């Protein structure tokens, strides 16, 4: 699916990088612990998180992710948005909680990708 479809499904506001909304993404992960994202994630292009600090964007950048969805209505500050713009990472903001947000994306075909068990 495209990032635009992710935004539509999650009723999310697009905070930056609108030009990249038609980028195709094939898998996602959800976590509030960046340590776990760095440890277990592989090739997932979308990160859903309720954590808001600059290291979220940096973690996404290190993992070559395309999109970060802030859930539970969390909003990044201007410094985070500016940083995401320089890295070409789309930031979305949704009022949904983690479980339904992940569930809706999964149900609509955005899988978990390769999972390390």
């Amino acid at each position, binding site marked *: 699916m495209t990032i635009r479809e992710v935004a539509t499904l999650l009723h999310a506001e697009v905070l930056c990088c609108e030009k990249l909304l038609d980028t195709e993404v094939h898998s996602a992960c959800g976590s509030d*612990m960046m*340590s*776990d994202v760095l440890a277990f994630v592989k090739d997932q292009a979308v990160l859903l998180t309720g954590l808001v*600090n600059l*290291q979220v964007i*940096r*973690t996404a950048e*290190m*993992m070559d992710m395309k999109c970060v969805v802030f859930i539970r209505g969390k909003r990044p500050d201007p*410094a985070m948005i500016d940083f995401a713009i320089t890295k070409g990472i789309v930031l979305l903001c949704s009022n949904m909680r983690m479980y339904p947000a992940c569930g809706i994306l999964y149900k609509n075909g955005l899988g978990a990708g390769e999972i390390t068990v």
Partner: protein
Amino acid sequence: MTEPIRLHFEVDGENFASAGAASEAVKMRLKQIGVDPAVVRKVSIAMYEGEINMVIHAKGGRADVAIWPTHVELVLSDDGPGIADIDLAMQEGYSTAPDAIRSLGFGAGMGLPNMKKYSDEMKLESEVGKGTTVTMRINL
């Protein structure tokens, strides 16, 4: 013998927001010279975890990077408290990070195991009260 590209960074221990800036610079450099993206990611994550560790535990430190034709060598050194039990510190899930750091999304006890996982060779030297040096090699 070909000389490597050498990069040096001082990692600021006072500013959590800037942690990872050195890793980001190395990532950009490796991409510029056309290194395989999968290898770039390994180097980036290994170094990023090291940088975060230096900021959390040691009030910063130094990162020296040498990019050879065959591999990347990362040497991260600090003057922090040192690690008393290295075997314990290497266990997944073991962490001495304070709760304040966990609330920032780190300190899950995955840093050192991750550095080992993403590097082809890793050496950890530490002396309590003196500091820690981590040397990692990632093959290109």
